[in-house]
């Protein structure tokens, strides 16, 4: 099953070695992805599931299978770190941290997801400050 993912990251340029994705993710987040038995609880409770191209459990499977195109999925940027999946996983896997690890793999190569110049003056004046700090922390390396 191949899905067309929307992202704009040149995966080659990230220079991840073959078979290295799961290692890299595990190092960043300290979670054991192989503990996942693909029950789908995480995906069932995710408030953003309808807009995602890969469900959270698919993300885990993609990582394990070294399918690096997961880095081009909308899902990893839609995840707002609400911790619902992490709270409910019967295997105690912190998917919230796995999503962050995937974002970090990209951001740490100095590839930003948000272009600050796109934020308008009106938005800066009306939206609460904590939204901006969160957005920058999540989308800018």
């Amino acid at each position, binding site marked *: 099953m191949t899905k067309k993912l929307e992202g704009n990251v040149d995966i080659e340029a990230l220079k991840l070695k073959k078979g290295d994705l799961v290692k890299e993710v595990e190092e*960043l987040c300290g979670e054991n992805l192989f503990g996942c038995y693909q029950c789908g609880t995480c995906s069932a409770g995710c408030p953003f599931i309808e807009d995602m191209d890969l469900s959270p459990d698919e993300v885990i499977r993609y990582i394990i299978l070294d399918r690096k195109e997961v880095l081009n999925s909308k899902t990893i940027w839609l995840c707002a*770190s*609400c*911790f619902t999946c992490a*709270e409910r996983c019967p295997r105690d896997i912190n998917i919230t941290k796995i999503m962050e690890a995937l974002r970090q793999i990209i951001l740490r190569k100095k590839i930003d997801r948000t272009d600050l110049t796109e934020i308008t003056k009106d938005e800066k004046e009306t939206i609460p*400050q904590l939204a901006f700090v*969160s957005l920058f922390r999540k989308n800018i390396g």
Partner: protein
Amino acid sequence: MKLSYYPGCTLKTSAKNLEKSAFAIMEKLGHEMVEMEDWTCCGVVSSLTDDDLMHHLAPLRNLIHVEDAGDEQVITLCDMCYNTLKQTNLRVKEKPDDLETLNLFMDRENDYKGTVKVVHFLEFLRDEVGFDVLKKMVKNPLKGVKIMPYYGCMLLRPREVAIDDAEEPTILKDLLNALGAEVIDNPFKIECCGSYHTIQQKELVMNRAYRITNFAIERGSDAIVLSCPLCRFNLDVRGKEAEKIYKSYKQVPVYYYTQLIAVALGLDPEYCGFDDHAVDPTLLLKKKGVFEK
């Protein structure tokens, strides 16, 4: 006893009304809450990669300032500040090596000894004041006002920092009961409102706001009560905007719990800063006769 308060940047800008109403309540209760000195933004979201110690620096620096001032606890009003400060506090307690590394980066500060307790204001009212005490002080009961409690994420998850049960929280319900309101339950009460996506994916957040609130309206809710400044913006402002997408939808007022307490205790509505909302929160209170007593 003087209580140390950590505001965070949003309480000083777009959520001044949350701060003002909280201070009014504390004064009424006879507690002296004082803004801590020398605070900085905590960074809002907790560091989620294990090697990223850098983003624990800001929360830790604030905790050190509290400790150095001789305070045992620090009270926050913003849910996200609460969550972030508390997660850092936990991490350095669980991983002394990390604390040692972090302490190396503190030039002006002393080393952190780990004595500070991070407390959310709502938690303080429940555990230190007691909702039964508040109940006895109510002058204008919120009688006949049907309200849905909305918790969002940061008070409940991750479990280690939660102030209540992660799946079936009751703290806002218990508070509303004490204030005399009628509580409307809603399974969406613990679902994320869309958070920072409110900047770049407005429609997504409008949709979240609509889904959460509409369910409450269908169950008879007149209003929503919550605690987080970002949730307030998303449910109130983006919810109002959602009226354009969903034709029969009519946004209901969104209150901070502190505003409802202030109203119920009969404090001057001036303290509530009701002007800063997209849907005027005073109309419902007038209609239900809460204000006119």
